[in-house]
């Protein structure tokens, strides 16, 4: 299951989720947590890939906040 490249750690994802739960009794099963790690990885990779594509479409070799702003609305609609 361990993959190449950087990824979120399970402990981090767990803490991030628990930070926003309203009910303290709410728990996350281990496999669901693993799937959430995957979900967040896809979110960040998709954000990066779309911003890079936007920069390349504008013929730039650096990806700035401006390019990310342009792809942000659709990104948020997809997740």
């Amino acid at each position: 299951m361990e993959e190449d490249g950087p990824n979120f750690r399970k402990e981090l994802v767990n803490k991030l989720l628990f930070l926003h739960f309203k009910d303290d009794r709410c728990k996350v099963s281990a496999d669901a947590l693993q799937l959430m790690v995957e979900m967040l990885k896809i979110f960040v990779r998709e954000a990066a890939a779309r911003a890079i594509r936007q920069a390349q479409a504008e013929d730039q070799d650096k990806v700035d906040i401006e390019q990310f702003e342009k792809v942000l609305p659709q990104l948020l609609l997809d997740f």
Partner: protein
Amino acid sequence: MELGQREEEEEEEDQRQLTLIQNLKATVHYTVGSMCQEAADAKGVRFTKPAIAAISEVTFRQCEHFAKDLEMFARHAKRSTINMEDVKLLARRSSSLLNYITEKSEEISRINQEQKDKKKKKTEGGNKKSSKQAVTEMDIDD
């Protein structure tokens, strides 16, 4: 007197919460930074620092939506534990994302099942495998 003390305690609690949030944000920022770096290296471009900061801020806020949705989904199913079905429901907006998450969930449950089987073999020796259980669990996905 007592009221003042309580206020002080609340302030301390708020402060603790704030440091926790800052720590989490820093960790998210680090992870997002290295993931963006990897993607940029592959494409021969580079991310500016504000761009990475923006992506990690968005990621952090997206987590809030994820957490609240998951909690609601579990409560709707009258559960207090979030399971993989809830996460699948989270990926409903994009069909390719849903496909990917479904595939991953099958992979995860298969690996977990294999590990369970291994443990069983170790503890019980030559018992028969119970691989049929995994199949019944996944029937809902189609």
